[in-house]
Structures are given as C-alpha cells and as structure tokens.
C-alpha cells in the first residue's frame, strides 16, 4: 500500500527530484541497433520545436510544452520564481478565468499538471485525442497572454510556501539534501533548491513573476512534445494554427556562472529529533551530457548500474549481503543537465552500525573501483540491463515525451537520445574505469550524515500503519 496517491496525483507541481525516478528508468533506454522512441520532428517558423512519438494503444495523447528555463536561470534574490511562475500559469488570461484552466481540461476528460526543474519548466495534459486542439489552444494562449494580479498571486504564494513545508521543512532528510546541494555547488545556481529559499519566497511579487515570464516564455524558447494516437500530418497543421501564429521572441541565452575549481571535501552533519533512522550519503560533482568530459557521462551511466543499481549490484552484495553493515545502499546519477551533474551514493546502516564505520566501508568499495576497476562480466550485465530498459520505457505513453522533452530542453539533440543505446554498447572497461577515477574525487564531494537528535530519537508508539489510499477499480 502507498501513501495516498491522491496527494501526489492531485497536486500541480512536481520538482525535478520526482522526475529523476522516472528518468532512471526512462532515460536508460535502448535496444541494440534500434532507435529508442522513433520520434518525428519539425520546427515552426517562429522557432518552436515540435516532437511527436506515435503510440496508438489508446485514443489518447500526452501534450507537453517545455520551456528552456528553470530555477538555475533565476536572477539573484528571487529564488523560487521559476516554480512560482509555473503555478501562476494556471491563474488565467483574458480568455481563461483564474483557476479555470485545469477545470476545463477536467471537464473534457483530461488530467493536467506541470513541473519545474533547474533547467526547464514543463506543462502537460493527458486527454482524448479529439480534445487535443482544445488544450493546444489554451496552452498557446497562456504562452503570451498570462494575466496576473495580487489577488490571485498572493494566496498562491502561500501555497508554494506550504508546498515547501510539505516537501522540505517537514522532512529532515530532504532538508539535509538541500544543505548538501548548497555545499556541492559553491557558485553555480544548481546549489539552490528549485522551490527556493523560504526568506526569498516570502518576498516574491507579481512583478517578479511577470518579469521572468516576459524574459523567457516565447515560442523560440519552447518545445512542443506530443505522444499518442496522432500522426505528424494531423499534428503539424494544428501546431501551426495555435503555436505558429505566436511571434518569435527575442533571442534568449542562459547566463550561467561556472563552478570554480574545488579544493576540499565537505561534510554536512544534521542532528534532528525527527530522525528515527540514520543514513549516509555523498554527492560528487560529475559531468553531464553537455559539459566537458561529456563522453564520461555514458560510462558513468554504466558505472552507476554496475556498482549501485539493484540487489545484485557490487555495493549491495558487499555492504548489505557480505559485510552486513548496511540495510540498503545504492547510487544515482542523472546526466541530463545543461551544466554539471551530481553522482550520488547513499547507504542506510544496519542495526546499530555507526555512520563512521559505514562510511569507511563505502569508501573501501569506492577505493576498490578506483584501484581495480570493474570486470568484463559486470560491464556486460550492466549494458544488457540498460539496453533492455528501452522496451519498458516505450511501454508508457508519457516516458518518451518526458525523456525527449527533458533532453531537448537542456540542449541535447533527438539523435543523442536515439543513439544512446549505441553509445552504451560502445562503452569499454577502460572508459568506465577512467570515468570512475575522475568522478570519485573527494575534493569535489560533499558527505552528508543524517542523525537522530543527540538526546536520542523521539519515541513514538510502535510501527506505522499505511494510509489506505482509494485503491481499487472504480
């Protein structure tokens, strides 16, 4: 059983963190010698990119518009404005009254939502194919005609502050993650939470939102991605009719500062009485598909699969099964970014194991990777798993749209997505080992210790009982 699906499915904004989970499945696509999603593409005269992934399983479509702007593009002092604007995009135009957007979508049998990340902001609707033109008209309308006033903006500011409390302030683990990112990125805006610092969020204004909107929302900074029961011959005229008539905006370039050379490992320790279970994690600065040493990124995909994915991965076998020092361990890595990425390792101690001992054991495993590298057998198995995952990614209506939208939004090409399996297949042991040596550099790392209060944890009354969600077939 799960925590109420209702809570997750009824909320509007998703942050990148939640997308990440989908991406590790979805962006691990590939079947040898086969393209991944077989998308068709076009570009409108005003510069808006169009991408289609046909899928005729059901008479429905996913319609998404991705803007190439995210929280890392925010001016200083208004952190959270990208995400706040995402919420405010539902507050109406001269044609659509505040709050009506989602209601109109629902009345037409559709779901809609939106999400913000460091590098992009996206809006989507899932709906019957014969309602596509309706949602397209509304999405095009709010690309340039957003109307905002304090009477709708100020209550929504309270909503994003409650959202921050739900996601971060009520969760010590999430708060520690926020502190660790801030430490990992010393200069780059990836160090800020997408949702923003509370003190800055409290001051965000209608004008801040409109200024950000005018700076970044235009067809030449947007990507239309549609997946579902429609052909390009049907889609393109519709896209031209609704999006093609919007005048091209000024040229936009992201102005990102470069992360300086880092000289020392950092450690962040958080004691909190709300922590029942201690945990350990470490972030390393890592290349993305867009940065220097982008070639390392595919090798790191493979490395992450070998050492930290699943219950037969190298780290799991050693630390959980053989040494019995951890109850779980894993790695995460998402190289789909405009600038640097983050290679993460996490572990939960087993029983009363001290975090210092756990850290020593993890460091031992990392040292083995650096000194001895991975084996041919590990490499072959990891590649096969990554290649297989393409089929699973293709099964979902929205996975292809998400992967393509995300990739294009950070400046990758469709070819880079589609050739991913070939690039995985081409990875050699030496490439994995060299990439591992470069990424596991303590000087570019932050280690996080999450611990109960020094006075010991609060003791509640026994174990948790999951909430019954409205499951069943209705």
């Amino acid at each position: 059983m799960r925590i109420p699906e209702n809570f997750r499915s009824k909320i509007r904004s998703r942050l990148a963190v939640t997308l990440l989970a989908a991406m590790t499945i979805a962006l691990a696509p590939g079947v040898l010698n086969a393209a991944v999603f077989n998308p068709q593409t076009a570009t409108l005269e005003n510069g808006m990119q169009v991408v289609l992934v046909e899928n005729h399983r059901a008479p429905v479509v996913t319609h998404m518009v991705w803007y190439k702007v995210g929280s890392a593009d925010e001016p200083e002092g208004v952190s959270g404005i990208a995400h706040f604007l995402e919420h405010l995009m539902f507050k109406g135009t001269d044609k659509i009254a505040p709050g009506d957007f989602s209601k109109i979508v629902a009345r037409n049998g559709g779901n809609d939502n939106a999400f913000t990340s460091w590098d992009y902001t996206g809006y989507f609707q899932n709906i019957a194919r014969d309602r596509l033109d309706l949602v397209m008209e509304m999405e095009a309308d709010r690309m340039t005609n957003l109307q905002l006033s304090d009477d709708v903006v100020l209550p929504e500011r309270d909503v994003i502050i409650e959202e921050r409390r739900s996601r971060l302030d009520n969760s010590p683990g999430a708060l520690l993650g926020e502190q660790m990112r801030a430490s990992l990125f010393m200069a780059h805006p990836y160090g800020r939470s997408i949702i923003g610092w509370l003190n800055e969020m409290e001051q965000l204004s209608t004008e801040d939102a409109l200024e950000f909107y005018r700076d970044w929302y235009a067809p030449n900074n947007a990507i239309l991605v549609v997946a579902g029961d429609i052909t390009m011959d049907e889609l393109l005229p519709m896209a031209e009719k609704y999006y093609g008539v919007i005048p091209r905006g000024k040229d936009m370039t992201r102005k990102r500062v470069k992360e300086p050379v880092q000289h020392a490992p950092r450690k962040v320790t958080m004691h909190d009485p709300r922590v029942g279970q201690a945990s350990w994690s470490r972030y390393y600065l890592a290349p993305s598909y867009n940065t220097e040493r982008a070639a390392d990124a595919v090798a790191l995909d493979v490395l992450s699969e070998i050492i930290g994915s699943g219950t037969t991965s190298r780290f799991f076998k050693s630390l959980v099964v053989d040494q019995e020092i951890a109850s779980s361990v894993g790695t995460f890595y998402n190289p789909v970014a405009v600038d640097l990425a983050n290679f993460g390792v996490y572990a939960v101690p087993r029983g009363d194991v001290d975090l210092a001992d756990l850290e020593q054991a993890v460091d031992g495993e990392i040292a083995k990777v650096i000194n001895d590298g991975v084996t041919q057998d590990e490499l072959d198995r990891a590649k096969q798993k990554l290649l297989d995952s393409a089929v699973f990614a293709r099964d979902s209506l929205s996975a292809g749209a998400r992967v393509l939208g995300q990739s294009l939004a950070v400046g990758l090409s469709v070819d880079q997505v589609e050739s991913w399996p070939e690039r995985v297949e081409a990875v050699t042991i030496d490439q994995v080992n060299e990439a591992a040596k470069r990424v596991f550099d303590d000087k570019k790392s932050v280690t996080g210790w999450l611990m109960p209060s020094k006075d010991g944890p609060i003791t509640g009354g026994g174990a948790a009982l999951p909430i019954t969600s409205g499951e069943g077939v209705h």
Partner: protein
Amino acid sequence: MNKLIKQITACAFASVLSFGLTARAQAVEVQEVVSDGGIRAWLIEDHMNPLMTMDIAFTGAGAATDPEGKLGLANMVSGLIDEGAGEMDSQTFRGEMENRSISLSFDAGRDDFSGSLTTLTRERETAIDLLRLALSEPRFDAEAVERIRAQIVSGLKHAENDPRDIASRTFFKSIFGDHPYARPVSGNFETVANLNANDFRDFVRRAFAKDNLIVGVAGDITAEELGPLLDEAFGSLPDNSDLPEVSDVTPQFGAIDVVQQDIPQSQAIWGQKGIKRKDPDFYAAYVMNYILGGGGFSSRLTEEVREKRGLAYGVYSYLADLDHAEMMMGGVATRNDAIGQSLSLISTEWSKMKENGVSQEELDNAKSYLTGAFPLRFTSLGNLSGMLVGMQKEDLGMDFLDRRNAMVDAVSLDDVNRVAASLMDPENVTVTVVGKPEGDLAF
C-alpha cells in the same frame, strides 16, 4: 471472492469482450483463460512491445490475518519469497531476475497478498519459473531473513517519526480499536524480532492456494501461450487456503486526536463512514466525492482551502474500501497556526454537501471528467493487468470496461443528493493531527 477456479476445461476462452474506445484505436479485449490444470486468468493481449505484465493476488492473505504476537508476518514473507528459492540462494535468485531484466515483487496489504511480474517476452519462461519457485519453494535462508528483518526494522524506525505515518497509525487505532485493521501491516519492533522461518513456511502453506488466487495478465502473449504458463506457475499450489476469517467491523468515528510533534506544518487526516463497493449507490457516492474532494483542481475542497486562501498545497478526500470495513477519508497539511482554519473550512464543506448536495452543472462536469478520463488508464500494461485483478476481486464482470462509463453516466442528480444526505456524516468524523497545531481544532 474465494470461489475462483472450479472448472477444468481445455485451454480456451470462456468469452471475449471488447471495449471499443474508438473505431480507430485498438479495442481492449478482456479474455478469460482457463488452463488445463484449471487455473483461471484474465488477459488483455497487446503486442505493441515485446513485454508482459502479470499481477496476482491471494485474497484474504493480507496482514489482517497475522496472528497476535506475529504482527508483520505477511509483510515479511512478501519481502522474503523473492530472496532465494529452490536451488538458488538469494544472490543467485536476484541475479537471475536482474540480469534478465525481470521484475518480480510481492506486497502484503491489509486484506490481500499480492504479486507483480514484468518480463520481456524473451525471458518469459525464466520469469514464470522464478514466480513458481517464489510461491512454492522459498528458502528463507538465515542470511536473507536477517537482512530483510534489518530492512524492516529500519523502515519501522523511520516510520516512528514520520508525521504521515504517525497520523495514519493513530487514526487507524482510533477507529478500529481491537480489530486487526488497527494493527500495523509491518508489525512492530517486538514481533518483527521474533518472526522465524517456521512462521514463514507455515504462512506460505496456508496462504498461497488455488482457491484464493486471482491472476491478471497484459501484453505480448496469446491465450494459448498463457495456459501452460499458468499451470507451470500455479499448478503446484494446494487447492485450498487455510486462513482465519477476519470479522466485519464498523469503525468508530468522532474523535479528535492530536499528536504533538515539533514541525512547522501540521499533517491532518480524517475519516467517516463509507460505502461498500458493491452498494448500488457506489457510483453516486464516487461522483459526489469527486465533486467534494476527489477531483483535484475541480474539487470544492481545493477551491476553498488552496485556491481561495492558500492554506495548503494538497487537500483531498476519497472512498476507502477494505474487505471488512469502508470509510470516506481525507487529508490536508497546513502551517500550525492555520490548520484549525483548514479543518473548519473542510467541515463546512462536509455539512454543505450533506445539506445542499451538488448542482446539475457540477454533476455534468464530474461525469464528463470521469468518463472521458477512463481511457487514460489504458496507457500502460501494468495498469491493465492490475485492473484485471481488481475487476475479478470485486466481481465486476468481464464486461466491466464496457459498462463502466454507462454506470457513471446513469448517476442522476437525485442519486447524488440522496446519497450525500445519507452518507455525509459531519457529526461523526475522526480527525488526527500531527504537528504543533495552534488554537482550537474542531470538525
């Protein structure tokens, strides 16, 4: 629903029903497959990608049947049967799964024990063999038992301080008293420490049988191909399960419980009496709940609490049906000094719904969403096979997918308002709040 699987016929379809979404898209056809050995499954064939999903449930084998003193038994078994079986120890078994991209997992709910298998067509035989081994020859090696025990204990430690976990634990204790539904699915530190391999083997013997098995399959497989696989996976199970009866229970509502925790935002859940899934008025209640708090941005609760006043990020209500009790529940999280205001607004909406019902326009909008969005559930195989299990468990019939939208459309304004008047019970709502709420709390 323990009456499945009686007849023995050759592998054949009892019937084929089609759910025509439009002329253009593939229709969704539900087939019933009965194997030579008499194992029955519902199947939706879909050959778009070379993969298949299978969902199974053993009804009545959930945590509610955990013996007193052995709480968490079903849950721990669900974590162990895919950790070594037959000749394979845990790492060998998991290696077979992971190297072949097979995912196999089990879960214990309050009522049922369920399983889920996803495999590429290429690995289908191995996947089915792993499923068979997990169900009939799990090993419960000491290494795996202690490792999974440590994971569960780690989860219990986390849950001990998690506001949402505390809220649900407190809430269920409050409404279910001594009934098994009040007990934690994952057990507690004491019981989990004491569970052993004898307990697990005993559970497997009693819980996994042909008479309480439900199977739903979707994807790249034909009925002819599925029949023999059903026998292979489930043919060696005993005919009859041996599980204690869980009694029906009427939850007790009306309490307001506060658990103090030093967090900036109070987490509240609430609940009142519900409606049985089989009740002829179920869809009227379902539509009503959509309008009240089930409909996301179209719901009254979201409008009042979030849109107008910015008091919460999420606020919702839903119908929760267990086999032996039914509830209507909801949740909200608001900063400590305003949680009372959120609850007061929600309470007002509760009463308004009872007294005034809904408008024709709200009803029409709800129906057009609920019927229009139904095909969105057919967009992944996992959704389909899961739905096939639910349809069988609830006795909805093979033609449910065909009839469902008509049942929603048949709900009249009178139906909704009559059900609202009788179901909504603002005087008897249990509320649990975790946080440092300020001011008066009432519902």
